[in-house]
């Protein structure tokens, strides 16, 4: 399976600031996803990162708050904008091969704490 690297692994940020999380894959993948895991909760899909076009956001998530880039088939970024304590979560990058029956694989995640 693909090797997925996320940076940073963790960060502590001030409220009102923004942080960009990077996801790098060691091979070209069709699909890249961003998930959020709030404390004590399960994983919730934020959006699907589409290469060369705007990301597809799930209900409850908007581009202004979580802008996503996908410049190529191996890299994506998620920005958490204008952060508040409610944004304290683990953010995970996931990759998969669209149109195939291959499962999704996950990065280590970015643990974000907002003061």
């Amino acid at each position: 399976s693909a090797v997925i690297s996320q940076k940073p692994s963790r960060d502590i940020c001030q409220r009102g600031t923004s942080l960009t999380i990077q996801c790098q894959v060691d091979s070209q993948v069709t699909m890249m996803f961003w998930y959020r895991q709030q404390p004590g909760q399960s994983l919730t899909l934020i959006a699907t990162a589409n290469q060369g076009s705007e990301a597809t956001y799930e209900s409850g998530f908007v581009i202004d708050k979580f802008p996503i880039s996908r410049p190529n088939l191996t890299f994506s970024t998620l920005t958490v904008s204008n952060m508040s304590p409610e944004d304290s979560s683990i953010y995970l990058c996931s990759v998969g091969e669209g149109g195939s029956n291959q499962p999704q694989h996950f990065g280590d995640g970015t643990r974000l704490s907002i003061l």
Partner: protein
Amino acid sequence: AQRVTQPEKLLSVFKGAPVELKCNYSYSGSPELFWYVQYSRQRLQLLLRHISRESIKGFTADLNKGETSFHLKKPFAQEEDSAMYYCALRPNAGNMLTFGGGTRLMVKP
């Protein structure tokens, strides 16, 4: 819309005892079901998927379409099985995963 339910947040068993982690789903089509596991301080990783019909680390899971369930079972739990387990569903025409709330399995010595 699809939904995955794991009714137990915590399951505690003794080493050597059988274990069953429950997963129920709701989806109008024919989904693909997965179990992911997250050991302490490790990344979320795939444990097994229903289409593989294989046993991984002694775990098995059978998709029961009549009961819309995909319970994870192991006949003899080991201490190293202690982890967080997530059941997930992927629609047959899509790529996104919907996760259950997760069950923490604790295997006591």
